[in-house]
């Protein structure tokens, strides 16, 4: 017997001129896992924030268990049994697990009896769902996976019957994802309803029984998961057919263009983050560097691109030593020698977001002909170059005079890529090329990287997205705790094996 627990009718929401949700209708059945997919900016998170009472809809009705409710704040949602695990966790980092969970639901003015009861209730919940959380640990000491469990426990403690999870797997290792899915399935068995917001098709196919697709603020389809497939869902999301598998020719690796010997790097707090790393990248190959965020990838990339000092070890470009602990080339000198860098954090290091697109499009090359002559910028040539390159890389909208922060994440990334790839570098270092980028743009960016490789460039790809590393790389190395803990040929490796390496288990 299926009965709807949550019904949304004609929900509309605008932020200024942006119509984030247009006439959304959605019915979610009790005891199911219901997926909502769509690209970044499709309006999924906005819709769920409305259901959670964080935003108020401009119009439309929301019914829980057939009864219309008025959601003015998250309090109203919580009372009606709606809980939400946000993409960015809503936890106070220097509080304990217990403090975070009881916040707002203390039940007493001065801590005492209710606190003891809360501890007992929470222990019972932990046991029921095998959450394995120590209530007295401080959030900042917990791994991302555990923080997420705290969020789930928090919602359950507050009496959630409907649990909304917003992009829950973006920051997890494959093993943590497995654990999460186990927890979600056991929640379902206990009769809870789960709404899973994601842009990962594989999760929808794995976990959900029903799926709704959003595109540009509209609900474009509902279906039972068993009646659809990944290709069909991707097409609904993007509005055109999408190539999910990359067409990649056999690797034709040439000479070694870039190598690193025994490299050690410290971070700003003087902690050693990269430990005796050796790498070799050949012409015409993509070396993938997988790993959970914070295992030294950031510092490695910074050292390789000349931003961070090398503690010990050497870096060679085309067989010539470019950096060691005594002498090192700065990013500009490396650039002149044919090394390009697409930084991990595009808004902090890749772009000046308050600048116009054309300014960012020539940054780093702005003192070269034809962009400048005797230190004076040549505006006309810069604009015509920008227009040309924006068309070539499909940057939308194609307006060089637009402020960079007004472009979407994917288009910002295209601005950086076009700038760096346009110079035809011999060696390309890329960090998180598709973080926060739409599925359509991902396809484009991946294709460009493959083209670069086929033209004989040596590419180092650093990504926390395992799928990305698997689909692009010719060889894969895994970094854990600053060390390279394994190297695999892409032909015979599974995400399982990589996941174990990433978690430092083997």
């Amino acid at each position: 017997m299926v009965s709807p627990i949550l019904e949304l009718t004609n929900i509309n929401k605008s932020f200024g001129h942006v119509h984030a949700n247009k006439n959304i209708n959605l019915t979610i059945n009790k005891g199911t896992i219901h997926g909502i997919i769509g690209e970044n900016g499709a309006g999924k998170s906005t819709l769920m924030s409305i259901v959670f009472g964080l935003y108020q809809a401009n119009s439309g009705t929301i019914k829980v268990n057939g009864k219309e409710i008025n959601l003015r704040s998250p309090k109203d949602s919580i009372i009606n049994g709606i809980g939400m695990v946000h993409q960015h966790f809503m936890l106070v980092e220097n509080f304990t697990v217990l403090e975070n969970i009881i916040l707002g639901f203390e039940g007493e003015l001065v801590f005492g009896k209710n606190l003891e009861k809360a501890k007992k209730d929470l222990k019972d919940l932990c046991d029921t769902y095998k959450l394995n959380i120590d209530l007295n640990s401080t959030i900042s000491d917990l791994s991302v996976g555990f923080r997420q469990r705290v969020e789930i426990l928090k919602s359950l403690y507050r009496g959630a019957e409907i649990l909304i999870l917003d992009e829950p797997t973006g920051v997890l290792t494959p093993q943590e994802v497995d654990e999460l899915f186990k927890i979600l399935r056991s929640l379902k068995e206990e009769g809870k309803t789960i709404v899973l917001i994601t842009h990962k098709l594989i999760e929808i196919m794995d976990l959900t029984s029903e799926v709704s697709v959003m595109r540009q603020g509209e609900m474009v389809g509902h279906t039972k998961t068993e009646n659809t497939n990944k290709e069909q869902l991707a097409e609904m999301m993007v509005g055109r057919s999408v190539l999910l598998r990359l067409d990649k020719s056999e690797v034709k690796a040439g000479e070694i263009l870039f190598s690193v010997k025994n490299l050690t790097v410290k971070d700003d707090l003087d902690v050693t983050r990269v430990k005796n790393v050796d790498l070799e990248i050949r012409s015409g190959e993509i070396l993938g560097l997988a790993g959970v965020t914070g295992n030294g990838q950031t510092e490695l990339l910074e050292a390789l691109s000349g931003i961070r000092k090398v503690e010990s070890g050497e870096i060679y470009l085309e067989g010539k030593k470019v950096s060691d602990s005594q002498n090192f080339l700065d990013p500009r000198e490396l650039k002149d020698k044919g090394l390009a860098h697409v930084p991990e954090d595009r808004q902090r290091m890749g772009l000046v977001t308050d600048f116009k697109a054309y300014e960012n499009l020539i940054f780093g090359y702005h003192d070269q002909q034809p962009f400048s002559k005797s230190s004076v910028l040549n505006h006309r040539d810069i604009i015509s170059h920008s227009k040309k390159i924006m068309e070539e890389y499909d940057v939308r909208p194609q307006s060089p005079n637009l402020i960079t922060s007004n472009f979407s994440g994917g288009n910002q990334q295209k601005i950086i890529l076009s700038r760096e790839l346009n110079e035809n570098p011999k060696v390309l270092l890329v960090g998180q090329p598709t973080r926060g980028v739409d599925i359509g743009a991902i396809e484009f960016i991946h294709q460009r990287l493959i083209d670069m490789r086929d033209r004989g460039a040596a590419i180092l790809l650093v990504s926390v997205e395992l799928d990305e590393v698997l689909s692009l790389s010719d060889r894969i190395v895994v970094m854990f705790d600053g060390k390279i803990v394994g190297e695999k040929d892409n032909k015979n490796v599974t995400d399982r094996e990589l996941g174990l390496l990433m978690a430092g288990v083997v």
Partner: protein
Amino acid sequence: MEFLSDIASLINSTLRISTPLVFAAMAGIFAERSGVIDFSLEGKMLMAAFVAAVGSYFLGNPWLGLLLAIIACVSLSMLHGFASVTYKGDQVVSCVAINILIIGLTTALAAAWFGQAGLTPTLNEDQRFLEVNLPFAESLRDVPIIGTIYSDILSGHYIFVYLAYLSVPLVFWVVFKTSFGLRLRAVGENPSAVDTAGINVFAMRYKALAINGVLIAFAGAHLSTAVNANFFREMSAGRGYLALAAMIFGKWHPKTALVACLLFGFTDALQIRLQGVELPAIGEIPVQLIQAIPYVLTVVLLAGFVGKAIAPNAIGQPYIKER
């Protein structure tokens, strides 16, 4: 015995001098723990001193003067909240505006009402707070040690001195042992977490600012209706800023902030005490050198003994819910 009584009087003045700092630091803890910067402690203290003195002069009762000072300071806190919480203005700018406003306002009003630039009439004994002698202080005076501690150090202070030191455990209890305190700390660390727990972030910050106003009023009233018998121009003399510094040294924690306030108070008391004193082998120390002691000590402590002060995570950031 001479030495012992010197020490006793030094401690006695330390307690007295630290009093406005303690109230102000506790007030600062409430505002800043909730995520609102409060540079305006200085201005509010000055306002409280003025209103308490004027109120007490006209109404003939220092308690009524204190009540008016509380109302004035809570209003100023609400003004700060209105600008920086509701309208999301820059918190530092709002504070600086309040400070400048109060310096001018108190001086101008004193001139208009009493014909003296920045001075209010001297209060008589009925219009001001008097020193409180604890029971048996006189009879215990001659008992060695205990007498010195009880009669010379603890007894004979203004009511505000006792209230200030009682406020510290009270603030500690409220901040760390009650659900209000939990919410207060959370709203200064991660307001989104508070919002998603169904608590109104703005209301929390206004409540914190209201408490802040009440506490800072005591500091001002202490200056103009207890240790002094009138208000004079800029009589807060930077104590609000000093208290803010003490609160930061104390890492936004009532107990350590108290220690920092006492330290400032002690160096100030020492400085007054050492003026004109002939030290053996050195002779009389130039007064300028002595007056520099508190500042030198502050710098030394800041540089050497206080670890990294970690402010509440969301301090200074207005809470913006929708994109």
